[in-house]
């Protein structure tokens, strides 16, 4: 096939990818975006297969077959609560592909100049994102301990390792014929990826996933430079900028500066767990009491967090939403940007449970509404509701934007126990007079509330 036609297919594909992302701007057009992306992908792949430099097809089609056989079940069988794990895994696959292509290119061509620079970037980012994403996957899947693992001089070790990898990369750029260096370079990148993610705790996962997303994209863009394929550069930089924007949004939502994030001060938050023994009392309530308050409420704001995903309580919350709406209450969901384990995690879970998406309200829009709310119901969220972030300068999360749950007339918190959350930060919200604690598994508690509400309705 004519090389020009292939190039033309690439140009159309690149345009479709941009349109695809543009259509993600609202749920009405988003599915069109997926179709545009699929057509672009099909064009690009068919174009490449028909290009004249491809001579053997057999192993390519076997790989297509295996990839599809794994990919289809991965897409359809994954429960929505496991979406963060799946995403981490797919960053790993994408990065691995880029790294391996870079490795093969290196040994084939031993290129000099700009191409070698691109290959070094591609393989460095590819390998470190591969192991980093696998670590993130392991933590999210709870194969690995989700707690941050820290040791002394962690940052120094990481910097040294990264520095060593960077120096070897430069040596390779200057002198590509030194092929013995390459495996060491690759190994350092792989180890660095592991060490980068080890100190990261669950609460930081949304930022990290977004950042790994960005790295995987940049590594694909570097591949585009190495292979002289501009469509690859475009697709890779779109992915890279998307990850970057999400990472910045997450950083802002946690009051972290971007440099702080880049230089891996991730574990910081967890270290300062200084909560004193105190005699403050909490008011614990039964589902019956909660139901009677909710029954009288006209305006309810539900604040979901990661605990909701853990308890798989999204469908029960839909039932609660239904009951309250039927009683004439105005029920909305307040979504903090870092609620859950990846950007947008809560939205997907609640959408899965068939809650209309216009009921899901972003933090900035809903915060002004809490003072008018009769009940704020916090389910499985902790730090994002902590008023200490507003007032207590000594708190590790001081300055982090939070949901102003404490301004509602009554606050109900569904929580497993009084133990401080993952970040180990004390939450004064729990000791307020207007706060009722509902101890137990989110799903069990919400189920009980729904049952009580139904009985109240029957009695009336």
């Amino acid at each position, binding site marked *: 096939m004519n090389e020009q036609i292939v190039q033309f297919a690439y140009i159309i594909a690149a345009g479709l990818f941009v349109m695809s992302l543009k259509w993600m*701007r609202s749920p009405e057009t988003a599915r069109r975006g997926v179709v545009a992306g699929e057509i672009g*992908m099909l064009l690009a792949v068919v174009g490449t297969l028909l290009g004249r430099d491809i001579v053997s097809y057999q192993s390519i089609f076997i790989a297509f077959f295996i990839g599809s056989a794994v990919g289809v079940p991965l897409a359809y069988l994954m429960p929505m609560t496991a979406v963060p794990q799946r995403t981490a895994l797919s960053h790993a696959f994408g990065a691995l592909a880029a790294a391996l292509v870079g490795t093969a290119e290196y040994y084939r061509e031993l290129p000099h100049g700009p191409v070698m620079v691109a290959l070094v970037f591609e393989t460095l980012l590819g390998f470190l994102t591969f192991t980093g994403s696998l670590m993130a996957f392991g933590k999210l899947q709870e194969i690995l301990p989700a707690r941050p693992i820290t040791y002394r001089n962690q940052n120094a070790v990481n910097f040294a390792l990264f520095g060593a990898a960077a120096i070897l990369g430069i040596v390779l750029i200057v002198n590509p014929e030194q092929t013995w260096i390459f495996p060491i370079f690759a190994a350092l990148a792989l180890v660095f990826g592991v060490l980068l993610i080890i100190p990261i705790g669950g609460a930081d996962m949304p930022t990290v996933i977004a950042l790994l997303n960005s790295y995987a994209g940049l590594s*694909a863009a570097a*591949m585009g430079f190495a292979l002289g394929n501009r469509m690859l550069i475009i697709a890779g930089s779109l992915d890279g*900028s998307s990850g970057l*924007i999400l990472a910045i949004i997450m950083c802002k939502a946690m009051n972290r500066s971007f440099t702080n994030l880049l230089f891996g001060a991730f574990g910081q938050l967890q270290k300062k767990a200084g909560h004193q023994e105190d005699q403050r009392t909490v008011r614990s309530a039964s589902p019956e009491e909660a139901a009677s308050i909710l029954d009288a409420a006209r305006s309810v704001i539900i604040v979901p967090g990661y605990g909701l995903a853990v308890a798989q309580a999204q469908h029960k919350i839909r039932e609660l939403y239904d009951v309250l709406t039927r009683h004439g209450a105005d029920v909305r969901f307040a979504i903090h940007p870092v609620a859950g384990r990846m950007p*947008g995690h809560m939205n997907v879970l609640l959408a899965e449970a068939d809650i209309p998406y216009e009921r899901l309200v972003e933090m900035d829009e809903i915060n002004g509404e809490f003072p008018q709310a009769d009940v704020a119901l916090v389910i499985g969220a902790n730090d994002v509701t902590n008023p200490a972030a507003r007032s207590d300068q000594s708190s590790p999360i001081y300055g982090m934007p939070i949901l102003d749950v404490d301004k509602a007339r009554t606050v109900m918190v569904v929580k497993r126990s009084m133990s401080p959350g993952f970040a180990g930060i004390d939450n004064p919200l729990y000791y307020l007079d207007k706060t009722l604690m509902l101890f137990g598994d989110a799903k069990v508690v919400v189920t009980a509330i729904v049952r009580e509400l139904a009985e109240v309705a029957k009695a009336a």
Partner: protein
Amino acid sequence: MLKDLEVGLYVFMLATFVGLEVIRRVSPLLHTPLMSLTNAISAIAVVGAISITGAQGATTLSKTLGFIAVTASTINVVSGFLITDRMLKMFRTRKPGQAK
């Protein structure tokens, strides 16, 4: 050679700007599907993997690495697009009768 690099850098810069502008407008509601969609799109790396695997005179090393790379990217392409669509289907304004 240098000309190629120059053009490449222009493309990279402009695509990044376009990316930043377009992504900024994506509703926060859709950040999770956005991530799986961009992931599927960047699995366009499959193109590079194909050319490594099927090229004339590919060594065993290139063929093996390329094979793994094609498999890994195909997983991303297939599962990325399918799961994005699966998620987007769930975002509805009103509840459809009893369908679930």
